[in-house]
């Protein structure tokens, strides 16, 4: 180490690191910060963000493959140590799920019978777009992920993103081949939700901690929720479809309802972007009704 700091001949770039440039660039940074405070949605910035995501996506994709493989391998090694407990838990869960399956099969028949009725108009089917997580903002305050699907696959800003467990977030920037997903835990995240069985509609607000909370509710009356109740997207605002699973109520923190998310961001790898178009009100919802019933979902039963 004694060689370090003796400033021997330093090759290229011998001219001094100018103080003036340093101060100028600090000023530019502050200006950028202030301008992004007042015009975060300015088209110039948005275009630049989307351009950078696009340009970086091949590099991210190149590295994220081996990383996923490595994580899988290390995951398998640690799985060996608790294979017995996992087996036991899985058997129990399997037994419970079998009961649910029976119930679901019964319900499916009932629903099919109802769908056969003339007056039933099925909601439009969502068009799912599958994508891999190739990037993640490892930042304490900015919580987002980058997925490898963009405009060329009909991804648009605002669309909901889910994984196998539940809602992950929504699309905020879309490049041609990659997009950014704002996670539910980000400080800017606002998602309309409702609590099942409690008659509470509200907005799920991210707080940069692991558990977001429902901060604004539709009713001014005191809210009564029970821990364990399910939280689903409400579809208010007309962007996300209604009924995507978000999490369960964990408890109250002051006036806020804390939510334990279903999704585990540490394991989110394969996601599904939900390209959902709300049925246009009054614009021939009733006339078009038979088509989706035939094209998607279980065929009408004989009943």
């Amino acid at each position, binding site marked *: *180490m*004694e*060689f*370090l*700091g*003796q400033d021997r*001949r330093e*090759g*290229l*770039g011998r001219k*001094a*690191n*100018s103080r003036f*440039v*340093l101060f100028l*660039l*600090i000023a*530019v*940074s*502050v200006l*950028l*910060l202030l*301008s*992004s*405070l007042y015009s975060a949605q300015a088209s110039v*910035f948005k275009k*630049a*963000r989307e351009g*950078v*995501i696009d340009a*970086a996506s091949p*590099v*991210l994709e190149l*590295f*994220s493959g081996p990383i*996923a493989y490595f*994580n899988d391998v290390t*995951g398998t090694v640690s799985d060996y140590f608790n294979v017995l407990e996992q087996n036991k838990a899985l058997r129990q869960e399997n037994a419970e799920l079998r009961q649910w399956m029976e119930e679901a099969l019964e319900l499916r028949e009932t629903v099919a019978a109802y769908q056969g009725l003339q007056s039933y108009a099925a909601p439009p089917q969502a068009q799912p777009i599958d994508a891999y*997580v*190739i*990037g*993640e*903002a*490892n*930042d*304490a*305050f*900015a919580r*987002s*992920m*980058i997925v490898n699907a963009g405009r060329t696959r009909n991804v648009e800003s605002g669309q909901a993103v889910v994984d196998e467990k539940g809602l992950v977030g929504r699309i*905020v*920037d879309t490049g041609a081949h990659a997009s950014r997903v704002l996670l539910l835990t980000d*400080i*800017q995240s606002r998602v309309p939700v409702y609590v099942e069985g409690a008659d509470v509609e509200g907005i799920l607000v991210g*707080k*940069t901690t692991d558990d977001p909370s429902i901060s604004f509710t539709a009713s001014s009356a005191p809210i009564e929720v029970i821990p364990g109740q399910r939280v689903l997207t409400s579809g208010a605002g007309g962007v996300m479809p209604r009924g995507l699973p978000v999490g369960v109520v964990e408890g109250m923190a002051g006036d806020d309802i804390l939510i334990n998310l279903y999704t585990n961001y*540490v*394991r989110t*790898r394969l996601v599904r972007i939900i390209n959902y178009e709300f049925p246009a009100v009054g614009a021939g919802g009733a006339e078009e009704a038979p088509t989706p019933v035939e094209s998607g979902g279980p065929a009408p039963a004989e009943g």
Partner: protein
Amino acid sequence: MGYRAENLLRLFKAAAPALLGIFGVIILALPIRLFEGAIPTPIIPLVIVFFWSIYGPNYMPALSVFLIGLLQDFLTGGPLGLWAGVYLVAQFVVMSQRSYFMGREQKVVWLGFALVAAGASVILWLVMSLMSGVLLPAGALLFQMLATVMIYPLFGVAFGELHRRVLVEA
């Protein structure tokens, strides 16, 4: 070695710290999730900016620092100018104390890095809290900075070897 190849090599050596910084930003943007996410990804660009601001400021001009920070802002999706500003302020502080750090023991430099990381955390927390209008929880940030400070000795030695044997020598 021909004249042109030599020039290319010199150019590469001059740009190596900046390229390393960009690589550090890319590492920050990857879903690495060390130990199933238990340990946050260290902020390696901060180490790079700190190290070369002391030992080779000519290799880390303010413009490189700015571009590294700006790329990080773009890739994390945070407000533009935040990380660029933090890195530039870190460079300013380090360069104003450069004569103190020169030739010191690595332990002392490590302590200096910890102080710079703490200062950077304060700026980040203040700016983000101001911008979002609430006092944000600082736990995650402090944990990430702690991880960065803990890996500093490792990277300090590696960068020292690189700087001494490859960039400056020959």
